[in-house]
């Protein structure tokens, strides 16, 4: 699905990613954990195509395409989805109007027909139920006046609507209470198929009780320094990151 090789990225001349390697296959869920400042959000931003970051080295292959050559919108149209850590409020733009535009531009890109108003509304009803998002929120301005939990649910709702190949959840759990966390995780689990993949970026192990990863990676100092089965997350929860830092720094 995605193959990241020796990725180096910097912002304002400061190198954040320093040779990151990651391979995710269809049907898999990968968790990326790591201490603050390790480069977790930078990885998400670089994959989504934020232009502030400069890629100095490395490659990203996304389903046979050179991801780094694609614009942000084309990445999304090819099936990459980023659930934002801090979803943006867009006053005046209704969620519905936004999603219909989005869905239709993606369809247009693929040479498919526009979705009919009836099918679209049916899809909205079905997918908003998945994350228990009040139908009223769906017609309000994008994220405006939403609570933290509602914003994150809205991200998963959008993910459900767009049906991406690869979803990257950037700290989707941060700031969520346990109920919202369960709803969000449930939504993600229901959307999982053998054809898509998920990268869960998180600071806390708790989310991984609900979204069970196939592989857990530790990102530290711009690189994946350790990968292991889901039990690695528990170990990190228990022991913190210092032992990994020590291990890496000793090398």
């Amino acid at each position: 699905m995605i193959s990241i090789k020796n990725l180096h990225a910097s912002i304002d001349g400061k190198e954040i990613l320093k040779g990151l390697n990651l391979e995710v296959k269809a049907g898999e869920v990968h968790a990326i954990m790591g201490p603050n400042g390790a480069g977790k959000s930078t990885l998400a931003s670089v994959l989504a195509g934020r232009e502030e970051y400069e890629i100095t080295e490395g490659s990203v292959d996304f389903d046979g395409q050179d991801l780094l050559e694609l614009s942000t919108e084309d990445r999304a149209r090819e099936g990459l989805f980023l659930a934002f850590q801090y979803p943006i409020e867009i006053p005046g733009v209704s969620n519905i109007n936004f999603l219909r535009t989005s869905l239709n531009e993606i369809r247009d890109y693929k040479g498919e027909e526009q979705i009919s108003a009836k099918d679209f509304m049916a899809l909205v009803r079905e997918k908003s139920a998945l994350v228990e998002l009040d139908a009223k929120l769906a017609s309000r301005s994008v994220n405006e006046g939403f609570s933290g939990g509602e914003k994150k649910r809205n991200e998963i709702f959008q993910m459900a609507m767009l049906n991406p190949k690869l979803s990257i959840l950037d700290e989707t759990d941060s700031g969520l209470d346990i109920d919202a966390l369960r709803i969000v995780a449930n939504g993600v689990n229901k959307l999982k198929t053998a054809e898509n993949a998920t990268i869960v970026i998180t600071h806390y192990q708790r989310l991984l009780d609900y979204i069970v990863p196939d592989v857990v990676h530790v990102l530290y100092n711009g690189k994946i320094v350790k990968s292991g089965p889901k039990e690695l997350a528990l170990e990190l929860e228990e022991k913190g990151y210092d032992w990994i830092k020590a291990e890496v720094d000793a090398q």
Partner: protein
Amino acid sequence: MNELIQESKVVSFVEHLPKTMLPFNNDLLSKASDVLKSIDFPTTRTEAWKYTRVGRIASISTANQVTREGKNLSREDINSTYQISKAGLTFVFENGVFRSDLSSGEFPVGATIKPLTGCDKDELALVGKSLQLENEVFHSMNTAFAVDGMYISIHDKAVIEAPIQLIHLITGKNTVSNLRNFIQIGKFAKAEIMQSFFALDAETSFTNVITEVNVAENAHLTINKLQYETEGNYHIATEQVDQAKDSTFTINTMTLDGTLVRNNLNIEVNGVNCMTNLHGAYVLKSNQHVDNHTIVDHKQPHCESNELYKGVMDEKSTGVFNGKVFVRKDAQKINAFQSNGNVLLSDDATVDSKPELEIYADDVKCSHGSTTGQLDEEAVFYLRARGISEKSARHLMVAAFIGDVLSKIENDEFREYTHSHLQDRFGWEF
């Protein structure tokens, strides 16, 4: 001093214009001509004209007006291109001259509607009552040289459902069109008036329009105004409004084209329990300039005014917003809200925004705010990350921004018409 007067461009500007034939009060006319003899066009040293240069208007060669026979237009042309409300009554003026051949011949029951040239002195006795002439070149010029305009009197208790639409066309080269409308809304009456301004093969032409409005006790009036004269033409408009107690006055001003557009809104709220709504949207590009100067003068208690102006400025366009709200000493319990927001789509576009509150009463609720900025790039990125092209993302956001003002327009036909013109001019979908 004599020398100064001789240098005044006003005298040479007006000397080729035909004096008004309208039966205005003689004192008013002599005052207007006195003012014109004694002052020059405002410069940027004049506070009210600090950001708007009228030099290009002053240098219109009025001696070389290319006047022509009225444009060869049919009612079908008017209906298909300029008529906004299919149900409404339509009255057409070309360069200030009433075109009865293009206008509705029917009049609603409960209203007197006719061109000013068809009015007698008594009907126009109140013209100029509240309009300031002192130091006002354009007001004085309009008074002394008014060609024609609409007289609309809505009788007491009459409710005119269909909008009354005034279509103003400017044609020809160096044309100066001094238009004067006089509107009286009787007690407990209700009406909606549309004024739309278009240019048709016009070049360096100037529209100077004054609309005087009296809204009587418990009357309701909405004015929907669309300014869509093409580049190369100049436009100065003044709405002078008197509101009596318990009345509601709403004006929606849409400025979508023109080289220089200045709107003066002077609202005198002379009665208690009045509602005043001023909404404006301006969307310009290239070197266009728009200047909205509004004054709401609360003289009586228990009134509310809402003012919302939003602009989207692209390329090298420039905008000015100057909104003044007075709350006089005895005008307690006033709620006055004012907001101006601007989005600059290019590095070369500028806006000068100046909200002003002058409050002399102590028990009032007033607020004003002004924001000018670029589109939120984080939001653009967010939309793009959902597969929306950068162009559509920006359009969605601009449409949402300006949609805030458009949603205040209650008349669906007027709103749709505005939408379609925005689409024609900017290629935006709303």
